[in-house]
């Protein structure tokens, strides 16, 4: 599995390869400063090499203007490799930039950031790309290894720390940082339960919003909360979707596959991932809750980032208050004020700032609070944002779970880690979050866990490893029963079936272990539906299940015997032909044969097939409609009764004579019916009259 660094280098490689040759040379020139021309096919790797070289990166960053360096610092401080250009420009404007788009253009031109593009058309310049994407919503990314070099660039933010602070005797209040990881786990379960989606604009459907608003766990306030946030479930969902390193669901919104090689995740790493996710929270506001600002950029990502940077600008130990922080934002942020309600505008946005600090950053463990209003970065916050000393991880208590006989799990919070939260979330449903969280083992959640790659043994092992006492026997039985139930139906999404020429061949293949499971008397399945080992097999045909049915049957002259072309037959034929024909016992030849019988076709009709359906099937499989004999078998029961009678037949020597006799009214009166081109049925009572008429015409009649 690629590491994070490799992933971003690959993205940079794809982005750079997407430039036209002229643009590539133009971008590489300031970065590489080559003395001799570089062959075009070497340019990408040389450029990536330079971006991986810290001294070179430092020199190129130093070449940039202060605002371009500040833009790069935003990538570094936020730990978010991808930013919308609009948000970056907003932050730069708040920092005093009057250069407009120039800092971003300079970074793109210098190869220090790249455009996020879907198109594979060669990019000739950055201006046309902005024209296509729309400047505010266009996204750019920086390599984390580059962004981190610019992290400490001065941003020119004022220190708005308050002169006074809480009494020294008061111990600052600091959250454990687990609230959001726990909520992310719960929202992941809700999403994996199915039915929840966001629109292309990352908006919620009304029904899903209501589910989040009424969810007993997600709608509840955190156990350790200082303010109440509206639509906290929606915030959790958007946050999870925006944090690239937190995969609560996979691309199909299902529980992601278990990564057996994943290293245990530290709480600080989870908090960093959430910090990076802040930049993507667009449709939520700390005072208004879920709020979709269609066609406009939300002020939340830029304002939240600026708040953190301002807290980082305070010296260690200094306290800040919401009011001066809000006042600074009020004065400097170009668009935040207009999104506030009238009442909040009257106090220059202070409640907004307070809600964000106490409602979002405090449970995250990034800030500590004292006196109910004084806020400063926690030790972890300072280590992430203000070059503070690295904070050691709190010691983990291994035994922190208690599995009860009623299949409920009590999880004592102090022993929880992101890794354990992730493991538990796969097979147990979060029921309540508090100092002691509760989960319940359910059939559905256990099933999802097993589907995501867990094993029953692994589930029990996790519970025993972290349990204060062994898992009760009834709970193990319950898990075993749920796991067994899963074995009752297997759905193969894309299996390879192996068809043998005879049942005996399949028997041999099974006995040799080449085939894991028998499907029919001649068709078998390898383990996991995979391709067989070809060592002992000779391939005579290869059919794609999704391909159109092909002609693979030849009908004998008798109209009822169907000869199958073994190389062309497909599985559908195997399933279909038995419905309308009887298998003919093998006669030693390799061709398999079936026979239409009145009973087999009657069975097909009783099974819902009409003559039209059968015609369609025969046309697809033989190239001809149902043979005459078959039609007779089908239509026979529905036609009127046939008439059997003795008749006098006049066989004339030519068609012309027959035509004349039928046409001339005098002779026509003696003829009952024309039976064929030269055969006429004569009215028995008029045979003598007809003979005389014919003789007058010179036509002799001989009676047999």
């Amino acid at each position: 599995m690629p590491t994070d660094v490799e992933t971003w280098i690959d993205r940079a490689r794809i982005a750079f390869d997407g430039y036209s040759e002229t643009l590539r040379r133009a971008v590489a020139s300031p970065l590489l400063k080559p003395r001799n021309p570089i062959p075009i096919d070497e340019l990408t790797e040389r450029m990536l090499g330079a971006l991986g070289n810290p001294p070179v990166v430092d020199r190129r960053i130093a070449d940039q203007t202060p605002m371009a360096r500040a833009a790069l610092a935003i990538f570094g401080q936020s730990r978010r490799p991808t930013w919308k250009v609009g948000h970056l420009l907003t932050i730069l404007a708040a920092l005093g930039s009057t250069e407009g788009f120039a800092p971003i253009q300079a970074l793109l031109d210098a190869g220090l950031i790249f455009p996020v593009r879907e198109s594979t058309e060669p990019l000739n310049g950055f201006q046309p790309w902005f024209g296509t994407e729309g400047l505010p919503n266009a996204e750019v990314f920086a390599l984390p290894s580059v962004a981190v070099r610019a992290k400490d660039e001065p941003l020119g933010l004022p220190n708005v720390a308050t002169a006074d602070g809480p009494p020294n005797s008061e111990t600052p209040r600091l959250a454990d940082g687990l609230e959001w990881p726990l909520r992310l786990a719960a929202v992941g379960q809700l999403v994996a339960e199915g039915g929840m989606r966001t629109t292309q604009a990352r908006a919620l459907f009304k029904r899903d919003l209501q589910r989040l608003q009424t969810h007993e766990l997600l709608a509840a306030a955190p156990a350790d909360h200082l303010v109440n946030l509206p639509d906290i479930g929606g915030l959790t969902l958007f946050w999870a979707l925006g944090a690239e390193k937190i995969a609560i669901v996979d691309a199909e919104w299902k529980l992601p596959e278990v990564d057996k090689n994943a290293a245990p995740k530290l709480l600080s790493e989870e908090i960093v991932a959430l910090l990076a996710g802040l930049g993507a929270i667009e449709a939520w506001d700390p005072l208004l809750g879920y709020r979709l600002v269609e066609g406009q950029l939300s002020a939340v990502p830029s304002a939240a980032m600026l708040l953190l940077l301002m807290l980082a600008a305070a010296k260690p130990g200094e306290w800040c208050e919401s009011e001066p922080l809000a006042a600074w934002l009020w004065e400097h942020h170009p668009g935040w004020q207009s999104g506030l309600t009238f009442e909040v505008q009257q106090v220059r946005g202070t409640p907004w700032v307070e809600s964000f600090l106490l409602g979002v950053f405090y449970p995250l463990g990034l800030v500590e609070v004292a006196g109910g209003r004084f806020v400063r970065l926690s030790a972890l916050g300072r280590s992430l944002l203000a070059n503070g000393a690295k904070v050691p991880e709190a010691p983990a208590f291994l035994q922190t779970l208690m599995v009860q006989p009623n299949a409920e799990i009590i999880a004592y919070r102090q022993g929880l880690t992101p890794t354990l939260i992730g493991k538990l979330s796969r097979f147990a449903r979060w029921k309540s979050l508090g100092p002691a969280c509760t989960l319940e083992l359910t059939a559905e959640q256990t099933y999802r866990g097993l589907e995501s790659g867990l094993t029953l043994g692994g589930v029990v092992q996790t519970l025993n490893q972290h349990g204060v006492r062994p898992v009760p026997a009834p709970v193990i039985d319950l898990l075993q029963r749920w796991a067994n139930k899963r074995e009752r139906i297997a759905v193969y999404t894309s299996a390879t079936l192996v068809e043998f020429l005879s049942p005996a061949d399949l028997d041999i293949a099974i006995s040799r272990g080449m085939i894991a499971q028998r499907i029919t008397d001649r068709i078998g399945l390898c383990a996991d539906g995979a391709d067989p080992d070809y060592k002992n097999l000779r391939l005579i045909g290869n059919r794609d299940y999704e391909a159109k049915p092909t002609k693979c049957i030849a009908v004998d002259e008798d109209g009822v015997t169907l000869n199958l072309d073994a190389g062309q037959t497909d599985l559908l034929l195997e399933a279909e032909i038995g419905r309308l024909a009887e298998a003919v016992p093998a006669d030693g030849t390799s061709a398999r044969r079936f026979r239409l019988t009145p009973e087999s076709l009657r069975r097909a009709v009783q099974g819902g097939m009409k003559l039209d359906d059968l015609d369609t099937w025969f046309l697809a499989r033989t190239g001809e409609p149902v043979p005459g004999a078959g039609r007779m078998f089908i239509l026979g029961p529905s036609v009127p009764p046939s008439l059997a009678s003795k008749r006098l037949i006049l066989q004339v020597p030519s068609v012309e004579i027959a035509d004349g006799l039928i046409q001339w009214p005098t002779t026509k009166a003696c003829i009952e019916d024309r039976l064929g081109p030269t055969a006429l049925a004569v009215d028995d009572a008029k045979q003598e009259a007809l003979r005389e008429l014919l003789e007058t015409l010179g036509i002799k009649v001989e009676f047999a």
Partner: protein
Amino acid sequence: MSEAAPARMAVKLHRRVCLVLTEDAVLAEELLARKKLAGEVLGRLSERALLIRPGRIDAVLDELIKMGHTPQVVGK
């Protein structure tokens, strides 16, 4: 005397097959009795094996889960 190497058996492969295998025939009947599921079944290869329309496996899975089954998905 050494035993002759077994001849290679002639086989035909059917690839990318969407298939539901049940534990027993009764369960397959139960699935076929469900109208929505029956509409997605192209044919029945054997008492326990149902062929599913290409591209409809997700609909089948959803329906199975709605029925209260917990199908094991192989080859995702």
